[in-house]
């Protein structure tokens, strides 16, 4: 059964309008501007020529597998790692580049650490007031400010407790209150939720987002968890091997990935490569013989996108939940004959893999109680609506990733496991 996407399509149009603003404004309302950042450890390059900007009150996430350079980027912005090239500006002021390298304590930032880094020899209150005292704020103002922050994170009653007496979630809140108390122009968060259990993580996700909105703080967030990135961010920067793969709002990243890495890292995806056989102003047709003899997919073009030339190779992407399973429809355009290889019942739906031609396709099949579920080995028809399909032309660099996906015939899904 097909999941309706009408409202998402509307959202897409709205989001696209806001996202298409220019990236280059050098105005002071940019909380962070990074240009051509290069960072290395010894001889290995961790971050290669990275450009990034964060608007004021914006929540931007660096997403990528471990070792992709996201934490290094964050530490460069913090001043805890010295880059080997490029420029970093905070609120318009240069903190790194052209001979300047402002020490971390002189940068107008604060940070939430993966380990929380709550000082165990200080009380909750002392932790929060620490940065305010370092700013030489007069003590009564500092005291009031720290109390307000503790109330804001719901730890007002725990002010005199030692940090070691608090639970993980509470320590996390102390770290948040401490980082927000100094009212920095940018708060850095380095995988702050990765040490919490799943339930608490979901709740803290929500709390951090609300705190960020209510305090209008700009945030640069680092995570390897794609659902965290999608749920929290205004914009997500997907990185791999020190290079930015795609920048966009969560909707665009999920529904319109620009390469195989983004497609498979941000959620599960089926990738099939074929040849463009026909092009019209609003759609084009791809022949994918690897999906079975005569398999043909129509793809509807988004507004303002140029279609690929006839005869070009394109990779067509569809998510498991975009596929609907139909036994009555005959295979044809956007309807592929496939055999069930495995089926897992997860309550709300079946997670299935199907064999179609040379590919193994991942499908989320939603069924109702009145329908007898299909068994492994049964043949079914998979339908994918032309307006749901997305595509990209494989760049030379993508070949490896794509071949790997095709060889294994299982969509690569990295980063699902938190």
């Amino acid at each position, binding site marked *: 059964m097909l999941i309706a996407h009408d409202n998402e399509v509307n959202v897409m149009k709205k989001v696209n309008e806001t996202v298409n603003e220019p990236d280059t404004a050098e105005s002071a309302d940019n909380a962070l501007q990074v240009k051509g950042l290069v960072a290395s*450890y*010894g001889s290995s390059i961790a971050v290669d020529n990275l450009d990034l900007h964060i608007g004021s009150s914006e929540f931007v996430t660096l997403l990528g597998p471990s070792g992709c350079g996201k934490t*290094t980027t964050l*530490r460069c912005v*913090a*001043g*805890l*790692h*010295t880059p080997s090239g490029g420029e970093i500006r905070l609120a318009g002021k240069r903190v790194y580049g052209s001979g300047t*390298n402002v*020490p*971390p*304590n*002189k940068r107008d*930032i*604060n*940070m939430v*650490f*993966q*380990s929380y*880094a*709550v*000082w*165990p*020899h200080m009380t909750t209150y002392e932790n929060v007031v*620490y*940065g305010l005292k*370092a*700013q030489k704020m007069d003590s009564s103002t500092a005291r009031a400010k720290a109390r307000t922050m503790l109330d804001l994170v719901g730890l007002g009653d725990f002010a005199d407790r030692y*940090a*070691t007496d*608090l*639970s*993980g979630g509470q*320590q996390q809140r102390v*770290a948040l209150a*401490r*980082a927000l108390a*100094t009212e920095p122009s940018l708060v*850095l968060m380095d995988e702050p939720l990765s040490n919490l259990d799943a339930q608490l993580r979901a709740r803290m996700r929500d709390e951090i987002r609300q705190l960020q909105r209510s305090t209008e703080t700009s945030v640069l967030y680092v995570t390897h968890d794609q659902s965290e990135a999608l749920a929290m961010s205004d914009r997500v920067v997907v990185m791999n091997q020190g290079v930015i793969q795609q920048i966009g709002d969560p909707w665009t990243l999920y529904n319109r990935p620009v390469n195989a890495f983004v497609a498979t890292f941000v959620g599960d995806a089926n990738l099939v490569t074929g040849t463009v056989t026909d092009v019209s102003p609003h759609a084009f047709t791809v022949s994918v013989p690897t999906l079975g003899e005569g398999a043909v997919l129509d793809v509807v073009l988004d507004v303002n996108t140029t279609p690929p030339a006839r005869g070009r190779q394109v990779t067509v992407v569809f998510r498991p939940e975009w596929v609907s399973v139909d036994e009555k429809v005959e295979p044809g355009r956007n309807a592929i004959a496939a055999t069930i290889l495995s089926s897992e019942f997860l309550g709300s739906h079946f997670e299935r893999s199907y064999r179609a031609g040379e590919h193994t396709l991942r499908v989320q099949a939603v069924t109702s109680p009145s329908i007898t579920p299909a068994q492994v080995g049964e043949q079914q028809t998979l339908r994918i609506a032309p307006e749901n399909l997305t595509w990209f032309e494989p760049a030379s660099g993508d070949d490896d990733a794509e071949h790997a996906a095709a060889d294994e015939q299982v969509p690569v899904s990295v980063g699902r496991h938190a």
Partner: protein
Amino acid sequence: MAIMTLEPEETLPAEPRPPRGGPALGRRIMIGGLIALLTVLVFLPTAYVFIGALSENARDPIATFSLDAIKDSYGNWEIWKVLGETMAMSVLCGVVATAIGGVLAWVIARTDVPFKRLFEVVVIAPLFLSPFIGALAFLELGAPRTGLINQIARELNLPSFISIDVMTFQWLVIILALHYVPYGYLLVSGSLQNMDASLEEASQINGRGTVQTALRVTLPAVKHAMLSSIIFVTISATGMFSVPALLGAKMDFHPLAVTVYRATSGYPANYALAAALGTMLVLLSIVGLWLYQRGMRQASKFVTVTGKSRNRKKIELGSMKYVIVGLLVLYALVTTILPYAALCLRALSTSTNLGDIHLTTDVISDVFAKPELKTALKNTIIVSAATAILTVVIGTFTSYVTERMRFRGSGLVNSIAMAPLAVPGIVFATGVFAMYLGSPLYGTLTIMVIAYIASYLPHATRVTGNGFAQIDVSLEEASRMCGATRTRTMNKVLLPLMKPSVSAALIMVFLFTVREINTAILLYTPDTMLLSILSFNYASQASLPAAAVVGLIETALMIAWIAIAMAILRPGNLYKRG
């Protein structure tokens, strides 16, 4: 109580620690200062041992170059025999002390033996007794004719095997080994406590009993700790001169350290020979450390220990409990209660003939009346306070620079700071002696402090280094992120968190310095008399009651230092992070 381990620095996984930004100048000054400091304190005296071995006058080595000392040491078959016997003695000590310490550690960490806290104190109690004073006490107890035990045995007509003679090789090994048991205990119990309980639980579920599990799973996992204990004790016992000098006085066997001492105390003093013999000890230690490193590499695959520690089920001893408590009481009796009782008896009675004991304070008041006691007490207080404070300051500085400012060569700097471990105290003293001979520092308390600092720098560096390693870097980074300067971060975050390990290092160095003889014996003059030397001299002059009194004063001073350090620093518990 924290102690040092010989384990090589733990290599951190994958992610390289990023070099730190910030003012490069301050960084360079700190690193340069540390290297200069270590060169003067550690490297030069060690180098002077070798220079001294090759010249008649170490201050003018080229003009007085001579291979005589080398010929008399390396070229002397007698010396090689002594070396072999020394090794036999110290390796035996290492093995015995580690075996006893390991078994005690296992019993206390794994079984339901009662009075656990009390027995833990009992096991490490010998740390507070200077090995020399301990040997003195054993002499009171087990000297061939006059020993108290032998007197009692004679009096009660007990069979002759009860009678003991501590002035023999085997008793020398036993007495030294008993002194080192706490080291074996602390090293192995640390490793046992860190071991993941599930490793042993898995073995039991797979059908192995208590003994099989202990031998097949626990032992391999703590093998590296036992190895480091054996090597540490062996090296330390090789350099030990006071105990063999006392107990071995009537034996043919004189360990190398005693031979070194004799070379310097004879007339004319042959410092070149002492230095040449010293180089043999240094080279032996280096071989030992090299073997240890090799062993570590092979043992490292067994090191499956993780930070996990949860409540594990204690092994139920059942009726074995009484046997084990009995053995622990015997241990307490032999290592602590009887020696102190013997010392007190000696101090409070003019005679230790059983039929002739009259309690009196005459001996004590006699000793207190002697002017040299006052000098020695004052000097010991000054030297131990100065050494403890300076060593811990320099050790903390060293471990901060090597742990926190990773730079090219930080491993080498760390090894230099650890090097005195491989140089026995008496040998190091010959180097210090050669280096400062003729300088105004010679014959002052300062030179002793300088020598002591180098000797105990490895201990202080290791203990504070472990302290730094336990403090996550992000705790400091968080402070910088909050806008605090490096200095403020140091004062408000790092030092408060370091308090437990700094206190432990301070107390340890206090204890070591108060009872130190091996280094001081070459460097003291009548003006710079110390309590430890005084008791040694009294004992060599056969005035054992006076030696006993001084020994008791020494112990009292150690306890006073611990109490003062605890009261001022309030180390509390290590801050555990959730």
